[in-house]
């Protein structure tokens, strides 16, 4: 298991460099001149333009730009944004917010998703099952921004139960509404995955054996059915955590959450390679680690799986 973990961490290195190179190139290749955009359509003195280009190495060819970026990276210098702020500081402000949002959304979808999924799976064909199936279908079909705007208007403006937009540095309680919106679609998927998995495992041999040897229904469900049914769900949640940590541009925009999604979006529009690459770099690490945790969880959930 230790070797397995170590191997996976070593894999991180080529993945990280590959991803940053690719992303750096993609930002480089997007059309447009970031310095021209800085002037906002107003004039800019040629000498100033020249100086700015040199400051961000934009006067250099791609390989030199990327090389200089890597050189800084080794010394843990993530570079500067076009507004002269340290990228590390910018990301340091945005990530905690997005992390809070992601954790809440993930907890919401994991707890309620598994709970509803189990009940629906156990009572296949009954009223609860039908309601959950139709409900989750609707949630999946309606785009996130519609859900977001409707909840914001009803809960935030008309009922006045919550602030329609988060204030300041986005405290936990104000993030409940956005987290709900963010987790809702995944919740529907988790319900459906759990339900399908449970109902399939109910007719498995080992369940029949467990029931036959006289175990209580509760023990059969909790230990024998649920544990084995969680593998696809955990895989889904692991991937979802990565997606959530990448920021949710739409949801963050609706609720004015100062998170990573919006930061990334603005940076792409501005052609700010340093910020984009740094955010993506962190995301790569999050994804790899999340996947590793998922793989390790497999062994915990299903005793047949062993890592050597």
């Amino acid at each position, binding site marked *: 298991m230790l070797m397995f973990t170590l191997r996976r961490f070593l894999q991180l290195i080529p993945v990280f460099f590959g991803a940053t190179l690719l992303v750096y190139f993609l930002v480089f290749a997007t059309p447009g001149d970031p310095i021209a955009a*800085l002037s906002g*359509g107003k004039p800019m003195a040629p000498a100033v333009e020249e100086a700015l280009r040199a400051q961000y190495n934009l006067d250099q060819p791609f390989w030199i730009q990327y090389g200089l970026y890597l050189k800084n990276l080794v010394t843990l210098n993530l570079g500067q944004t076009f507004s002269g702020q340290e990228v590390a500081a910018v990301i340091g*402000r945005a990530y905690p917010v997005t992390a809070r949002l992601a954790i809440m959304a993930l907890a919401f979808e994991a707890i309620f998703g598994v709970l509803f999924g189990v009940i629906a799976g156990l009572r296949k064909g009954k009223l609860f099952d039908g309601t959950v199936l139709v409900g989750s279908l609707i949630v999946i079909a309606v785009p996130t921004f519609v859900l977001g705007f409707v909840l914001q208007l009803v809960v935030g403006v008309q009922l006045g139960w919550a602030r*329609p937009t988060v204030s300041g540095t986005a405290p936990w309680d104000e993030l409940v509404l956005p987290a709900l919106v963010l987790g809702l679609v995944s919740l529907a998927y988790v319900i459906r995955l759990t339900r399908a998995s449970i109902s399939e495992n109910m007719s498995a041999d080992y369940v029949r054996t467990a029931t036959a040897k006289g175990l209580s229904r509760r023990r059969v469900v909790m230990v024998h059915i649920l544990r084995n049914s969680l593998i696809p769900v955990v895989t889904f949640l692991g991937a979802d955590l990565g997606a959530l940590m990448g920021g949710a541009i739409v949801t963050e925009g609706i609720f004015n959450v100062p998170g990573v999604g919006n930061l990334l979006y603005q940076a792409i529009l501005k052609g700010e390679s340093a910020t984009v690459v740094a955010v993506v770099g962190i995301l790569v690490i999050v994804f790899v680690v999340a996947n590793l945790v998922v793989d390790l969880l497999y062994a915990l959930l299903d005793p047949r799986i062993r890592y050597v």
Partner: protein
Amino acid sequence: MRYSRTSKALGVAAVLALTLTACGGSDGGGNAGGDTSKVITADNTEPQNGLLPANTNEVGGGKVMDLVFSGLVSYDVNGKIVNEIADSIDTKDSQNYTIKLKSGMKFSDGSPVTAKNFVDAWNFGAAAKNAQLNSYFFESIKGYDKVNAEKSTEDKMEGLKVVDDTTFTVELAQPESDFPLRLGYTAFYPLPESAYDDIDAFGQNPVGTGPYKLAEGGWKHDVSIELVPNENYEGPRKAKNGGVTFTIFSNPDAAYTSVQSDTLDILQQVPPSGLQNYESDFKGRFVNQPYAGNATMTIPSYLPEFEGEAGSMRRQAISMAIDRQQIIDKIFYGTKKPAVEFTSPVIDGYKADLPGNEVLKFDAAKAKDLWEKADAIKPWPAGKVFTITSNIDGPGNKEYITAMANQISTNLGIKAQLNPVSSFKEMRELVNKKSLTGASRAGWQADYPSLYNFLGPLYGTGAGSNDGNYSNPKFDEKLKEGLAQTSVEAGNKIFNEAQEILLKDLPVVPLWYQAAQGVWSNNVNNVEFGWNGVPLYYNVTAK
């Protein structure tokens, strides 16, 4: 009144007049109930750069700068200049200016405002080595070309001379009658001596001369900017509230919802999605008022189809093929006014009846006729599509340009369409490299309230924002003549003659004047919007 002790002669009258009108205005809105200790909140975007006068060229930073700093003059609600730090600005020839400061003016940290603070700040802003975005604002000052040359290490313009603590002189490279009008713009604000020790740190936590100052650690990046009243401020814009907190919004729709729920006090501009309903959503709590900005469409002069006599006719035909009022009504819900010249109705000197402005009126028959005449001289290339380039990453552009293209198609019998690009940087690159193959979306927000600001930087030969490479010696001559006048009025007369030349050449097709649609919450009173569409935050009172 605290003003009368410190301000003298010229200042007193203006200041008193303004204070009186301000009081009069607030009485109607229930001044008695106004709470001067409450903080008001307003929307903003994250300033692009550190808060330095010569490096702030966009609205997000500009709004903060205008509250934290003050210049020699400031603009009142109508865009008229009012002395702030200046006691007098004198000139006999529009080229040599003597500027006297009021004595006893202070920065928010208590240090005195001296003539040297202005001269040093302007020199800093102009020098190429400091790479300040607004450096071109100093180009009329003698010696600018030396300090702003590429790789130049000099940073002293010979046109600026300190006479004594409260007096300095400015020599321009040529006469420019509207120079005093510019002095309220961000680029011309003074910097305290201490700023230069670490200019980047200063930009994060500026010390200014304005009605407000930054609260301790007030700038929380991407989240909010907190301003508190500056007790050292003496001037016409004294704060009537306990502070202004700007909340950073990346999405204007979110800001709109916040004002609806009274969690935000002032929204400067209703987003396109709210234009249809804002008047009913905010009964008695909105404005719709023109500000100093316009929207145009540039037809570059480097396009072969638009050269010479046939080109002129085509420009006019396209202009007359656009039914501006229809687009305004259908897409902007009647919130704008069709353009009848190249500047803005809020600017002193604006004339709605310039000879030749019929080319800006919708006339489908005449448009078609002109297009055919142009075709007879030089045929429009078979199958050529007339494109209008615009970035479509923000809301609002795509809809009106598509509508405009449809009108041109229908009325001229050619194919016209939007050429969408994904980002502003992409659009600016096409424009700056002069590699457009058709028209492009354009427009202008005035930096300071003057006719010249709408003309010189945009249509003068080789000017910085002359995107279409327009050049007409007669127009340049008129601009020069207007600048050489010794009064603003005399200058405006000549600038309007210059506009008549533009109406013939149509380097851009003026479309409409911008208007600010602002809304506010139930928690505030006395919300007024200025000449530039920005609320006068210092006048707003909390209920």
